[in-house]
Each structure stands twice: as structure tokens, then as C-alpha cells.
């Protein structure tokens, strides 16, 4: 069944079950991926997946939901029946409605949908990449984590009031994670990930070069002394921190009492006035962009922090209604609708007079710690308390030397971190999770083995 036929089928089955109000979200995907091991194919994968989530409203306007991978006529009928049963337990304390924007026009940027290159080509490309990475430095002995994949998928949202949205696209990903070994030293590992609309769009050479350079740069390593340091966050690591604490901007989290913000936090000063943060799912560099969310609301650019102050929260239909505003295109589709950011963009605002612009990661000659990548986010972040303690990959710059840091954690509080931003570099870098410049923060605690 295609998406129009599914809509018709749901409509017919809902009529039969006397269900007047329903909506659904569906996704259909075909994925192909390869992994190699020292020039040989290791595992080749293909998957065809379909997922349908149906919501129904009962006569008391309570919502029930069911998710299924069985998109046959009987599967759809069963899903509607189960959703109807579940609606007896619908949330009486917080109602859910269709998004008022579910029929608004959507901005679909030029669809960059590629044709599959096929498993054989994926394998050839990955084999060559592995060989090149192994040859790039004598200390690189293996590429234990590697993969090249391409995905083709369609997402659909429709409801009983005639809203219908469909969107299809393709995406490819390459990851190369190398392991370097030298005598009498611990093995060191690092890597790179690149995305593209199709396998042919991926910059393979830069992925190899980045994986090699990053891995080799960690060979000269040492422990670091536990102390407070001036820190430079790479664009990737700063975006990781912002995403980890995005509950500060999340209306769902605020209602649930698990956010550091509250309903009255709009306008609260969080950081230097030099900081702007946007959520911009439709950004031209966001390869994973989708034009509408789980409730059919169009995706849009939204300012979260303007000149250091909270400007907006992200919303679903129900949180927007509670906050007396409009949905922002950040909802999932579930029994309890989740809210999450799309793609974070960090910028330096015009009000940047208080920054220490001499702090530039490529020229600064004083002592500082460069945090390249933060790890173990799920374990080391207490979003509801604002604290973090995270292992990281990075370097200590000291006395004109750059030394990789062995096994250390950076710890602090997100509000302290934001308030202690001392520079926002000018040039931004595109990562897989957003765009950000390098960000400098003073006086964060680092625990090391030295």
C-alpha cells in the first residue's frame, strides 16, 4: 500500500469502527550498509522497514494510540481497535488536539533525493577508504569501527480533517574510526563521520584525512593534573552540551518539571549578550532535515537564545496551547507527545563587546584545554539538575606544546558554563548536529590521572 492507500484504508476502517477523529504518522525505509575488516567484506546489511502510528479520539475526546509494523488491511484494523481500547486510559489531565498548523503550506527545499548506488559500490568505496586510512600513518593498525550506508525513506502525516503531508528523501553516512598503536604506549582511537544526500555526495577523502589526523594527534598523550582550566570547546563538543541541556528550551520538559527553566523564564539572562542560539531544522546544511514534525506542524527556524536571553521555547500542539502560543514544529507522535530540537545553530551576536577576542584556538599561545569531543552523554549529564561530568577527547596546550589528554573528565554546571563564556570565535563549522563556532569558557573543572 502506498501512503494515499493507507490513508484511505484507515479512513474506511475508522468509519467501520465509528471512530470520527484520528491521525497517523508513518515511515517507510530501505537501508543498505556495509562494514569491512582489513580489506574483506565483514557484514553487508539491507533492511526494509515500515512503521505506522495511529491515534484515535474517543467520544470523551481522550486519545489512544497504537504502533505497528503490520501495514496490511487486517493490521490497520487491529491497530485502530487497540488504539480505541487504549483511549479509555487517555490523559484526562492534558488534552491533545490536531496541530492548528497541520494544513499550513510547508517549505520543502529542493529535494535532494539520490538513487541507490548499490551494495557493491558501497563495499568498493569503503574498502578503498579503509586501505587509504591504514596507509595514512604507520601507527594506524586497524579501523575497527567503520561503515558506509545509504537510506531511502518516506514520512507521512495525515488526519481525519483532511491534512496530508508526505516527504521522501535519501541520506548516506560514512564513519571511520581508526586505532593507532605504538610500542609501550596505550592504543589511541579517534574517527570521523560524514553525511551526504547520497553515497556519491560524501566527501570521503576529508573523512579519511580527518580520521587519520585526529587519531595520530592523540599518540603523544599524557595525563592531566586535576584543576580548573580555560577551555576551548570545539563546535561539535559545544553543540553536544547544548543538545544535552536542550530541556532548558523545551516546553514539555518545563511542564513535566524536569527543566531548569520555568514558564516565566522567557527573557531570563543565561549568558553573555554575545550569544545567539537558534533551532533551524530547515537549514540548508542540515542533511537530515524534514519539513514537518510528528503532528504535521511545519518545521521552522526559531530563536532560542537572543543576546544571551531565552527568547522562545520549542513546542508541540498541546504544550503550545498550555503556553498560549503556536506549535513550533518540534513534536513527535506518541501517546504522550515528545518535544525535541532539530538542528542547533550557534552564532555570535552583534552585542559582542565583552568578548576576549584574543582567544582563538589556532593562534592563542597561553595555556588552555581544547575539548574536541565529549563522550558518555547519557551517563554524565543530569539535565534536570544542570550538572555534567563527562569524559572527553582533547588536548592540553601548554608552553607551545599540544599534548593529547589521557582519560579525563570535565565537570560543571550548564548555567555556570553559559555565564562564563569568554569568547565566541567568528567562523562557524558545520557538524552532523548543527553549526557552531569554537566557544571559550573560563574556569571549568577537569579531573585527570596526573
Amino acid at each position: 500500500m502506498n501512503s494515499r492507500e493507507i490513508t484511505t484504508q484507515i479512513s474506511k476502517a475508522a468509519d467501520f469502527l465509528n471512530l470520527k477523529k484520528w491521525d497517523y504518522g508513518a515511515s517507510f525505509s530501505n537501508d543498505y550498509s556495509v562494514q569491512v575488516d582489513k580489506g574483506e567484506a565483514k557484514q553487508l546489511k539491507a533492511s526494509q522497514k515500515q512503521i505506522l502510528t495511529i491515534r484515535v479520539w474517543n467520544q470523551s475526546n481522550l486519545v489512544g494510540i497504537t504502533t505497528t509494523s503490520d501495514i496490511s488491511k487486517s493490521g490497520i484494523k487491529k491497530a485502530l481497535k487497540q488504539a480505541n481500547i487504549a483511549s479509555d486510559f487517555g490523559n484526562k489531565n492534558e488534552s491533545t488536539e490536531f496541530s492548528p498548523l497541520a494544513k499550513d503550506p510547508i517549505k520543502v527545499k529542493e529535494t535532494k533525493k539520490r538513487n541507490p548506488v548499490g551494495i557493491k559500490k558501497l563495499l568498493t568505496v569503503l574498502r578503498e577508504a579503509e586501505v587509504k586510512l591504514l596507509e595514512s600513518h604507520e601507527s594506524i593498525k586497524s579501523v575497527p569501527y567503520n561503515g558506509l550506508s545509504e537510506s531511502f525513506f518516506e514520512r507521512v502525516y495525515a488526519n481525519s480533517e483532511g491534512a496530508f503531508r508526505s516527504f521522501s528523501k535519501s541520506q548516506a553516512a560514512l564513519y571511520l574510526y581508526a586505532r593507532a598503536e605504538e610500542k609501550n604506549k596505550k592504543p589511541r582511537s579517534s574517527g570521523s563521520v560524514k553525511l551526504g544526500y547520497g553515497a556519491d555526495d560524501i566527501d570521503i577523502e576529508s573523512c579519511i584525512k580527518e580520521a587519520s589526523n585526529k587519531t595520530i594527534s592523540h599518540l603523544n598523550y599524557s595525563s592531566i593534573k586535576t584543576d580548573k582550566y580555560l577551555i576551548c570547546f570545539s563546535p561539535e563538543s559545544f553543540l553536544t552540551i547544548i543538545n544535552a541541556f536542550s530541556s532548558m528550551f523545551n516546553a514539555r520538559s518545563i511542564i513535566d518539571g524536569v527543566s531548569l527553566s520555568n514558564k516565566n523564564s522567557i527573557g531570563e539572562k543565561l549568558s553573555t549578550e554575545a550569544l545567539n542560539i537558534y533551532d533551524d531544522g530547515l537549514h540548508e546544511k542540515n542533511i537530515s532535515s524534514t519539513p514537518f514534525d510528528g503532528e504535521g506542524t511545519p518545521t521552522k527556524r526559531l530563536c532560542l537564545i537572543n543576546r544571551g536571553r531565552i527568547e522562545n521555547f520549542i513546542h508541540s500542539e498541546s504544550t503550545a496551547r498550555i503556553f498560549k502560543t503556536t506549535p513550533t514544529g518540534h513534536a513527535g507522535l506518541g501517546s504522550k507527545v515528545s518535544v525535541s530540537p532539530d538542528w542547533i545553530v550557534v552564532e555570535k551576536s552583534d552585542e559582542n563587546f565583552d568578548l576576549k577576542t584574543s582567544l582563538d584556538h589556532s593562534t592563542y599561545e597561553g595555556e588552555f584545554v581544547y575539548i574536541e569531543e565529549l563522550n558518555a552523554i547519557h551517563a554524565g549529564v543530569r539535565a534536570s539538575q544542570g550538572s555534567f561530568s563527562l569524559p572527553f577527547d582533547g588536548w592540553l596546550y601548554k608552553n607551545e606544546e599540544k599534548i593529547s589528554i589521557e582519560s579525563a573528565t570535565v565537570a560543571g554546571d550548564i548555567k555556570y558554563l553559559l555565564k562564563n563564556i569568554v569568547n565566541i570565535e567568528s567562523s562557524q563549522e558545520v557538524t552532523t548536529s548543527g553549526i557552531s563556532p569554537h566557544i571559550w569558557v573560563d574556569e571549568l573543572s577537569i579531573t585527570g590521572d596526573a
Partner: protein
Amino acid sequence: MLSSQIKSNEIVFGSCNKDLLEEIIFYGIGLGADFVEIFIENTDNSSVLAEEDFITSVSPSFGRGAGIRIFKEKKDGFVSTNDLTKHGLMRSVSQAIEMLDITDNKRELFNGLNKHRDYSLSKKKWINEVPSIHEISEKLLISTKSLKKNNKIITRKGSYSRNLQEVIIASSDGTYVSDIRLHQTVGLNVIASDAQYRSSGSRRFGSSGMPNEFRLWDHEKAANDVFESSMNMLYADYVDAGQMPVVLANKFGGVIFHEACGHLLETTQIERGTTPFENKLNEKIAHESVTAIDEGISEGSFGSLSVDDEGMEPEKSVLIKDGILKKFISDRAGELRTGHKRTGSGRRQNYSFAAASRMRNTYIAKGEHSKEDLINSISEGLYCKSMGGGSVGATGQFNFAVEEGYLIKNGKLTSPVKGATLIGEAKEVMPKISMCGNDLELAPGFCGSISGSVNVTVGQPHIKVDSITVGGR
């Protein structure tokens, strides 16, 4: 007549599918595969969330799918699909064969499937014995009400999930198995707040194959534990970072062994060349007080199974005996690529993942000391009563959050501390586990890795690590 024709052309759960499965396996072998495996599942899941004094989410789901794996020499092709018709399964076999570029004429023998091993016979009634959504909702609401012990508790949550998975596994070595798996888990969480102070507390409980278990769950005791933990931590200071001895509590304290050492004993790590223990079989890798076990047979434990996802009954594997490495955790691909015999540990989240060597119930065996012996032996250190999550890096370094910690001074527990993380490497920490308590207990958890998220049990008695890096402020 029409009915039987339909049945013979698609997988029907609860019926004999032998002819169809044999036909598909013959097809794969005929095309040149060394080995063909078919994993088919039918799922019926539901979850319920209670927040404060309301049910805020009820999420049923159901589905079915197949994963087909073809081996040719040491490489494998894996295809997953929702199409369980003969045509769909044959197409998946063809796709896997094509991916592997199999063109040679060498044909393996396939003598048909063995006698059906049906582990599901006594389990078909489970679906009718598990608690209804109404029953679950009522108990969750009582539980969240029990958490409301003072006005410092600002959020209260109770969650339940039930996964019922019916599987059929058939492969060209004759394996033909059916099983039904039932997993139930229930968790309680609170956030406490007072002025600028905030803390949280959580506990999770889980079982496999015991439909009545949720009814027997002691929600009052669970609520008291969670409440006490959050209150103890509410005004805690941040811990000072440094190297120090620590005592790790039993139950979920075992997560460190699971993450930091257990994963390094899976054959997938040998395949990648990422375990420091690869060539250490029968060598000392831990303190002589450490014996560690991985098994899938403890009745009702969250990581237990009647048969693994490759059709092998799970065994009890002594991984480390008195500090000596004795065994790796292995699956079919692990045996093929590393030579380590299968241990009944081939596991996957669902049909869309190929099975891989994964832990089941993994724990450090009990020793002879009391908890007090361990704490009394430390003049200055940290007691980690409750662990949060953690992770292990590509070169074996680990990092774990301490959810509830207390300073040890002169052999006594003193003030609570927050913000602690334990940092180290298994190779260096295992020899420093110098004392094991006599109070082994297990705790359920979910483990995410190469073949998705699977149910596991972690565990240990109280243990003492002589020195470890504690991250703090």
C-alpha cells in the same frame, strides 16, 4: 483448500512452518550459501506511564518481521523485512546472496530441519496471565502516590513496560526452534527540590518469563528506597576529584564490570581487535578474589532465556575464575571468526538486527567479606551506593556516574556527595578489586550494543577497588 494454500505461502505463528522454512533454506543453499539462518518474530508490547496522580501515556504496539542471515566463508549478509510471505522471504535470501556476490558452484549439504524444539508450549498462556492495562495503571498510580512523602518531591513518575516476543528460528544446520519470551519492567523516579538544591532518585525492577511478577512487586519498598535516596542527596556537596579507594555496592554496582570488562570478553571485540584480553586466555587478568560469571539460566532473571536468538540453549560460562581468564562470550559469527565456541549468547533486539555475542546475567561471584569489612578497611575513600549509567570507549576506558555516593572516613560512612564519576580502564582496575563481599545481588538493565538493546542482568556483591580515579569538581 484456499486456507491451506495461504498458510503454505506465508509464515503463520502457532502453526507448523517446517516445509516453508526448509524450502527457503534449500533455496539459499542452492544459490551457494555456506549457511542460512531465518529468525522470525511476532511481538505484542505495551507500556504505561504514570506522572504525579495521572496516567499520561498508554502505548501498545505489535508487529512482525524476519531477519535472514547468509554466511559465505567468514563474511555474512543480513536482510530484514516485514514481508513474511514465501515470496518476501525468498526475495530477502536472494538479496543477501547478491550482496555477498556469491557465484561459485560449491554447494553445502542441507538435510532438512531437525525435530522441532518448541519452548513455547507452556508459555502460550502468558498473554492471558499478564496484568491488564487497567491493573497496571492502578498499581502505578498507587506507587506514584507512595512517592509523595513531603513537599520537596516535585516530580513523581512510575513506568511499566511489557514485551512479549514469539520467535521461530531455523537454520541450515538443522536448527528448528520456537519460543515465547516475556519481559516486564517497572521503574520509579523522583526529582526533589528545595531552594537551589536539586536531586533525583530512581529504581528499576525487571523479570523474564514471570507473568505474575508485576503483581508481586513491592511498590512500597521501592518508593521508600527512591524517596530516601533523593532526600539523602538533596543537600549533598560535590565530591572532590582525585584518586581514591572505593566500595561499590551490590546489585547495580555490577554495571561497571558489565561495561568495563564484560564487553571486552565478547567475541565481537576480538573480531575488531579492540579487547586487551584477546590473547590472555588462562592468564591472570584480575585480582585472585574475582570470579565472574555470565549465564542465561537463572529463573526469572531479566537476562535469562530458554534459547538464544540462534537456537542454542544458554550455558553458564565462568568467564574469570580466581582472577584467571577462562572463557569468552561467543555467538555463531564469533565461533566462525575467532574459534571460541558458542555459549548460547547470540542475541539481538529484534528481527532487524543480526545476532551478536552479548551478555545475559553477568556478575562477580560472592566472596567472604561483609560490607562493613570493606568499608572499615578504608581510611579515606568513596562509597558508591547507587550507580547511574556509563560507557566504555573504543580503547577500553570507562566512565560511570555515581547516582548516590558517600564519603568514607576512618572506616565509616559520612556525608553524601554528588557529581562523582568513576574513570578507568578495565585492564588496570580488575587487578585492584581486592575484596568481594558475601552479599551478591542482581539488578535488571538494558544493554545497547552492536545488535541493539537487549535485556540483561548485572550484579555483584559489595566490592572494594583499591584505587580509582574519581571525577568531580
